[in-house]
């Protein structure tokens, strides 16, 4: 029996390997749509989707919006500055108002962990988590995994090291859950001051030296270092961070030939990653972005009730 996704996509922790593979395989089929001269299929025609962004985002918001438009959905973007949220409306009231407008799906980005789950429990519409606090960013995790699968064929036994500010990273958590469910070996690497408590209990290796992670890994997923981490005392300086933890060309010289480097963006060039790595032959950072649209198309389509073979149901225009 074909697995289904359920009503919402709020986390990879709660998905099965089969559900993750369903999304990846569906995304595989959607990749082709973005390569057409006319990048549009009618799969979600008549569906209304709200992109509810309580935090600044360029890449994720645009990626969702393209995915929605390429599936022919009607979309509305709400950003905090222009909404009643800045007037002190609570999330539960925002949710009720959206419900009252009979929308079909909500894509939410919010600074509070658990906010997507909170919304999903209170409205009938499908809810997609586009990043909730330090909890999860499931579509980012999925697009990272799709990029790894594109390169390596299988995730089983693949060694993926997630490097940097794991403590504050929703990308790290989604990657850990998704990769482990598909049989990859996962490590985290960074200064212990940026590691969550008891992180090894998630079933990951822990490295405190970037050199060790590079030696171990088939792929590095280099996290963005939020610049405010320095002022709040987690690390002494960006300069020192780059010297001790930066993914630099010199450090990659002794790495295996197959090692690839990912980054969820936006990058701080010269801090967590050097430009000649980001722009170099090991980098798959732009393929990640391309895959992001296909993953989001797949998630939107599957949550809207689409079956595994979208072409038979929606046809192409």
């Amino acid at each position: 029996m074909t697995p289904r996704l359920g009503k919402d996509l709020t986390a990879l922790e709660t998905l099965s390997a089969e559900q993750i593979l369903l999304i990846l395989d569906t995304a595989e089929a959607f990749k082709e749509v973005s390569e057409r001269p006319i990048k549009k299929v009618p799969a979600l025609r008549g569906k209304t989707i709200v992109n509810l962004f309580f935090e600044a985002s360029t890449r994720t918001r645009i990626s969702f919006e393209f995915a929605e438009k390429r599936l022919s959905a009607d979309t509305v973007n709400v950003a905090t500055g222009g909404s009643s949220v800045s007037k002190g409306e609570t999330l539960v009231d925002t949710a009720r108002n959206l419900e009252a407008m009979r929308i079909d799906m909500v894509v939410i980005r919010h600074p509070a962990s658990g906010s997507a789950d909170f919304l999903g429990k209170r409205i009938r519409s499908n809810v997609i988590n586009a990043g909730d606090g330090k909890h999860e960013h499931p579509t980012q995790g999925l697009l990272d995994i799709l990029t790894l699968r594109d390169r390596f064929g299988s995730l089983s036994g693949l060694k993926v090291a997630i490097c940097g500010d794991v403590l504050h990273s929703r990308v790290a958590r989604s990657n850990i859950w998704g990769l482990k469910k598909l049989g990859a070996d996962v490590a985290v690497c960074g200064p212990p001051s940026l590691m969550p408590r008891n992180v090894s209990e998630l079933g990951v290796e822990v490295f405190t030296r970037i050199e060790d992670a590079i030696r171990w890994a088939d792929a590095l997923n280099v996290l963005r270092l939020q610049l405010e981490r320095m002022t709040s005392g987690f690390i002494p300086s960006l300069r020192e961070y780059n010297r001790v933890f930066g993914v630099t060309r010199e450090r990659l010289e002794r790495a295996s030939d197959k090692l690839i480097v990912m980054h969820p963006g936006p990058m701080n060039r010269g801090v967590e990653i050097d430009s000649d790595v980001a722009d170099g032959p090991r980098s798959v950072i732009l393929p990640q972005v391309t895959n992001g649209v296909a993953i989001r198309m797949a998630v939107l389509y599957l949550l809207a009730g689409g079956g595994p073979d979208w072409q038979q149901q929606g046809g192409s225009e």
Partner: protein
Amino acid sequence: MTSSILIRGGRVIDPSRNSDGIADVYVQDGKIVSVGRNIVGEDGAQIIDASGKVVAPGLIDLHVHLREPGQEDRETVASGAMAAAAGGFTAVCAMPNTDPVLDNQGAIGFVISQAQKAGKARVYPIGTVSLGQNGETLSEFGELVGAGAVAVSDDGKPVMTSHMMRTALEYARTFGIPVADHCEDMSLAEGGCMHEGIVSTRLGLKGIPSAAEEIMVARDIILAELTGGHVHLCHMSTRGSVDLIRRAKEKGLNVTAEATPHHFTLTHDACEGYNTNAKMNPPLREAADREALRQGLKDGTIDVIATDHAPHHYDAKEREFDEAPNGIIGLETAFGLTHSELVLSGLLTLPELVYRMSTLPARIFRLPGGTLAVGAPADVVILDPAVQWVVEPGGFFSKSRNTPFAGRTLTGRADLTIVRGRVVYDRRDA
């Protein structure tokens, strides 16, 4: 509402006299006049049949938040005193972090006057350690005590500077009152909303490490030794704190400590699904911490059980986890939880429960009650230790409903509560 009440045939447990057996308790003019077999009351005395029930000195809660003045949508002195009575409490100590805070004679007097008007459980206000709870200027303890305060505390916040805590402990000795401290190193805890551990890691929530509490417990113990003052450690939550207190008591220091039913019942797993009714400060911790608290209650390291009753309007808890306020209500579930979790599990005997929920709290804060000795105030509770009931917050007397125990089946409940010789709660009327 007669002036004489004869409680017949119950199992009378009075830890203050080491007594436990079937007896009658006779109450007249607000005092216990006799305890024994086959007491014959005067004509017109109200007769209460307590056979199959437990008769004990009324429960005393050293740590509640009644929210008045300032947050009457959550609780008032009257609603809190009624909830207390329904939970078997005859007295509660009200923390001063109201709005405005209880840092002066007038505010203390106001709470006492509201409690008198309500006429349910006794309410003893606790004054602030510092003016405005700002940690800078010592409150006028003499004025506060004169108006009726029984202790001082900046609860809700720690007394952050060691100098302020030292001064408070020294100065409080003049009046023989304890300084009750909320132990939390704010620089470690800031922004945290649950216990720092595997669950906070998974949920992506900022944690509060156990060390934040233990550092302040250690400091307070050291200052108790320095000053000879009485430090009362509020709502202990970690195994490390229990160890520190055990060592302090071995040294004979003037340190007492409390634990809440939620900390010895639940763990941080209750926060799963971002359940804001499991959000409190100190946070629910790990299974090993819960076990250490239980052992501490058994061996006396932890002196008393207190609820930290913290009412919040339902709107306030209906939001993102890190934005939701800390705290849960506890007065109407405390006995049922303690009896179910600690007595039925064999950890404590029923007399030990009464000791830690009545007799010892009275002694520690030097309050009337906690005893059925002849001549003592007639603050008495009749407990039904056998009744099974399901927690339904909708039926609570508290104005708030924020409890993680909704739907839980408990064994044991208060049936009838007498304060100053007057029935203030009778479940048969409820």
